[in-house]
């Protein structure tokens, strides 16, 4: 069975220097309460993989602000000017990855693939240090899988088998990140018995999930 626990207990398993994938898109579909619990706990030197750094006062942005992140792998930093400042001052390592490539690299990690060939990034700084393969006369970059120690997935409903429904546009990176971490933690608004969630509405199959942190169990 899955570990079902408080937000605090869920993040207690995360130690300094861990790598964490955090789903969400400018805070939509981001496990904000797990991030808050992680902040409270004081964990530092993290590698964070996330589409963006949210806003300075919300989500991943809070971890940036509190200097908990050593390296950030992301695609879009528009809404958070802190990141650029900290990068330029040498406080934070930033690896920029095109958004589609980020999704595919994470999916590769979860799907047991050794990489993908993508046309995205050819002729740009993104291609630096990467192998280029020509298929049918077109150039592709070989992009490698991304995996992490943990991933934070934000669900609206999760059953006790870990099957998670993620509503509307908050699915975004949560689905592939659930697949690609050694330990996937779901923060859910609602926890239900197996069978209570329509099997056609499952965004993340429970087989990927190890821990379910129930928001309402937050002390």
């Amino acid at each position, binding site marked *: 069975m899955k570990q079902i626990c408080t937000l605090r207990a869920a993040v207690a398993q995360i130690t300094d220097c861990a790598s964490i994938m955090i789903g969400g898109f400018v805070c*939509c579909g981001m496990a904000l309460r797990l991030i808050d619990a992680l902040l409270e706990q004081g964990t530092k030197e993290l590698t964070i993989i996330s589409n963006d750094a949210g806003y300075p006062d919300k989500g991943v942005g809070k971890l940036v602000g509190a200097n908990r992140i050593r390296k950030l792998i992301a695609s879009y930093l*528009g809404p958070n000017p802190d990141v*650029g400042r900290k990068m330029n001052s040498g406080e934070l390592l930033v690896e*920029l990855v095109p958004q589609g490539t980020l999704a595919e690299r994470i999916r590769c990690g979860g799907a047991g693939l050794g990489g993908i060939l993508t046309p*995205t990034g*050819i002729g740009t700084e993104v291609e630096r240090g990467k192998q280029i393969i020509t298929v049918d006369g077109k150039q592709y970059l070989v992009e490698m899988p991304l995996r992490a120690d943990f991933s934070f997935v934000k669900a609206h409903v999760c059953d006790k088998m870990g099957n998670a429904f993620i509503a*509307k*546009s908050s*699915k*975004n990176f949560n689905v592939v990140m659930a697949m690609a971490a050694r330990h996937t933690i779901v923060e859910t608004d609602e926890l239900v018995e197996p069978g209570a969630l329509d099997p056609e509405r499952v965004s993340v199959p429970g087989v990927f999930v190890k821990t379910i942190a129930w928001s309402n169990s937050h002390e």
Partner: protein
Amino acid sequence: MSDDNKDLKRERIAKRIVRELPDNALVNLGVGLPTLVANFMPKDKTILLHSENGFTGLGPMPAKGAEDWDIVNAGGFPVSILAGGCFFDSAMSFSIIRGGHLDVTVLGGLEVDEAGNLANYLIPGKMLAGMGGAMDLVVGARTVIIAMEHVNKYGEPKILKQCRLPLTAQRVVNLIVTDMAFMRVTPRGLVLEEIAADTTVDDVIKNTEAHLTLAPTIATF
């Protein structure tokens, strides 16, 4: 330039771009100026908007107080979904983009050059916006339209012989629409097809570093 005037010029860019959208097109609008295009959707065409964070059928912002924070656009702001749209995850969203299923993408630009190269995500040491979905969008979309001011805030040309900033992608831009001009990227370089109502061909050329070939007739927009 007054703010009102600036807004009018941005509207003019958006309205001109709308005329380029084919009927039944699937279109992705970038953050900022390109988003304005949604305000002028043609009544006589069916346009489906794609939001790269994970849905089709992007609709208007809800009234204040009626926001659903689970439905946001690529800028993170609450929007709505229209009948006939659907939700999906990021991997599917970029499969749509990269797989050639997107008809048009409209994006902002820092620099565009004669070869159709685009730079729009990074000014080393200054601005670190990140490419977000832009690199995939311009590589994957059938038509790439760049919507931007003709010159930067120092009055310097943004349409260059060759881009100087780090590239978003090589040879991808099809059309450039600015507050001054409508230009097409062709195998023989940039062709000036139309100018804004309040400018002249000479003025456009003066504010453009790239070589502009003049179309046989230059219309006004």
